[in-house]
């Protein structure tokens, strides 16, 4: 069978190598101080999409990202690894979005794409670490969702069997299509860029990039429709401006603190029933659990 797959991806600052200037004094991320990369777990999601495509030739993978013009870089990165098409959702109106406004904007673009059987995204992005956008997109679209996906065990016309991570183990669930999956870092790593695709798709560009001075592949782009990356505005996806960007974002950052956990005192419990009972009682009493 041929499936239409959408992968949601985010360009993020590489927080794995954080230096002194990583944060602005106002508590927001200083994006210019950090290299921009493909959010790692979104690559895990892309790999799941590619695995579906491996088993179902003819399936189409569309990569969707919201961000500034330069976020087109991760669309190319996705094409290098095997995605079929890229959509950049970009508009000043989207700027400053929290997870709610982001998931709204993405859902409008997904509606615009129209056909989809599976939507995949990373569990969370390494800049915000909220793990909210995937589930919210499912909610906006009224889709079932499976979070913390590790691997897809079985895929049929109307349903999918998925292994997902839970605390202390895994769980196997079945869900109907279309659905949204969030994929976590324990899933298969993404396959490498492919040299042939790199050579071909390094010319892929959004209309804005194609119009920029010094763009050298007008002829190639005219001959190969896959080399044009879609660039969609708020008006194009027919979104409601009041639900986008800052105005659509109820989240307000008051301040950012470093939290350092310190063990001030320790208690020792044996594995006897009495000790465990005492521990549970204590944790209930101080509201750590329950």
């Amino acid at each position, binding site marked *: 069978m041929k499936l239409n797959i959408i992968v949601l991806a985010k360009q993020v600052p590489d927080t794995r190598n954080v230096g002194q200037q990583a944060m602005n004094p106002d508590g927001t991320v200083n994006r210019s101080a950090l290299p921009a990369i493909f959010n790692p777990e979104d690559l895990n999601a892309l790999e799941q999409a590619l695995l579906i495509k491996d088993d179902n030739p003819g399936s189409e993978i569309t990569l969707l990202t919201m961000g500034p013009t330069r976020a087109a870089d991760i669309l190319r990165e996705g094409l290098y690894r095997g995605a079929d098409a890229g959509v950049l959702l970009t508009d000043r109106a989207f700027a400053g979005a929290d997870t709610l406004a982001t998931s709204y904007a993405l859902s409008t673009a997904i509606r615009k794409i129209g056909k989809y059987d599976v939507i995949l995204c990373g569990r969370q992005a390494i800049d915000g670490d909220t793990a909210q956008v995937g589930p919210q997109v499912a909610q906006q679209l009224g889709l079932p969702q499976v979070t913390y996906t590790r691997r897809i065990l079985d895929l049929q016309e109307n349903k999918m069997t998925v292994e997902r991570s839970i605390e202390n183990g895994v769980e196997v669930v079945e869900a109907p299509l279309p659905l949204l999956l969030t994929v976590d870092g324990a899933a298969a790593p993404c*396959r*490498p*860029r*492919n*040299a042939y695709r*790199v*050579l*071909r798709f*390094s010319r892929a560009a959004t209309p804005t990039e194609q119009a920029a001075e010094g763009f*050298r592949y007008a002829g190639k782009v005219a001959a190969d429709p896959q080399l044009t990356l879609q660039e969609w505005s708020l008006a194009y996806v027919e979104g409601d401006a009041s639900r986008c960007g800052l105005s659509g974002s109820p989240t307000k950052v008051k301040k950012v603190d470093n939290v350092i956990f310190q063990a001030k005192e320790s208690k020792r419990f044996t594995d006897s029933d009495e000790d465990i009972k005492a521990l549970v009682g204590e944790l209930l009493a101080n509201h750590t659990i329950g």
Partner: protein
Amino acid sequence: MNYYTDNPVLRHYLNHPLFRRIVEMRERNFAEAEKYDYAPVDFEEAVAGYEQVLTLVGELCAEVVAPNAATVDTTGPTLKEGRVEYAPASEENMQMFRKAGLMGISIPRQYGGLNFPTTIFTMLEDLVARADAGFGNLWGLQECAETINSFGTEEQRERYLPRIASGETMSMDLTEPDAGSDLQSVRLKATYNEAEGRWYLNGVKRFITNGDADIHLVLARSEEGSSDGRGLSLFIYDKRNGGVHTRRIEDKMGIHGSPTCELVYNNAPAELCGSRKMGLIKYVMALMNSARIGIATQSVGLSEAAYSEAVGYADNRKQFGREIKNFAPVYEMLGEMKARLDASRSLLYATARNVDMTSCFEILARERSLTPEERQEAKAFSRVADALTPIVKGMGSEICNRNAYDSIQVHGGSGYMKDYTCERLYRDARITSIYEGTTQLQVVAAIRYATNGFYSTLLDEYLAEEVSPAMAPVRERIVKMAEIYRTAVARAQSFGCQETNDFLSRRIYEMASYCIMSALLMLDASANEELFASSARRFTAMSEAIVAAHATFIENYTPEVLNDYRSC
């Protein structure tokens, strides 16, 4: 980490003036851009594409292959019912390189390859060997495809090259228990079955790298009753047809990722590659030249690894209250390692450019007949390639052994422990001066270019090139060194004694090599002082001392000396 983008040295070789011509010729003025969606439209795009693929491989090497290398070293391949199974981590590397589309680097596009020049393939192999020299063999053997491309029929090209480009592995089955350095003694028997119109192979091959490959090039005796090289032909054996099994995987000192096999041919069907009787004298000679450059590349990659391990250790290890890199005995070693590394790399890429120009003319000659000027030019490039190949293989491998030795020395006692990478590098490096022709055989291959004055002429050419003011004094020193070399060649020849020539040939070879490497590094330094100037000065100084030592030996030599050696 990325072995390409983190190391500015490699990018330098993309800027050589001859490289543009190589790319334009190889791409036939970019005619394939219309036909293949991944073909470049111009030189700038071609180079941008090479850089992207180098970046991709640099990343895979640093993030996958290098971290796997220690496991591959301790696990190694296994033999199961006549078949070789790579170590699981080797298999992972292989799968990664297949998925990344890196198995047909220089195969033409019409057969599914990337059509990259030798210079780029060499740079990629340089990166891979730095990460894991053994994996470098498995991956690098794709270059055997060039033999089928050059000497096979069109039908064979169409049948085999796309399979190789999509990831099937190759081997070259040349040596046998009694035919190592002396390939003329090959005995594996090829019999032609008239009724079937097919060749069958019977016999044993030994020390075959990646011997359980999918597609083999096999040297076999096709002319019954013959006993020399003229009775040998080259065959293609396809594993799908069966008839060959691996009897043994050698238990080696190093390069554990690369299975070295003993193969038994039992009525294995095979097809002729090229013409009968030309196996050794033409095809294997060409194949070996390319394989020798492959080993030279592996050596440079290993040298780089040995140097970077040593620098990394010396930067961090503190003794007597300071990082050890601050002590003269340590920075002397590091400085000389880097100079040797840079010099062998300058020579490597000079050789690769000449190989590239040679094959560009070969490709052109298949399309149309060359003009007399072109023929002359082609011949000149091919001659330089042939003359530099035994130097880059011999000296590159000796240098990498020296660098691996020094890398352990910089590490001190820790370097002797298996915990440190330099211990593996030392074992891996050891084979480079042995396989694909020992250093002693490289001397044999090279010495004619010393005696006929070719190296001397080549040096004159290099020394006539314009250099930056900073390199002018270095050039003066090399000019003097070249004089000492010429005097030594003349003295060696003055005895009119073949035994003397053979005996002194290693020293003559080294003198020529040090002069040529100094000159080439000087030229690179002239183009990029920031990267190479200090290396060029160091290497020239080191070379002067070595050349002087050899000159002294040759000056004091008389044929009676031979008796003192023979009697021991």
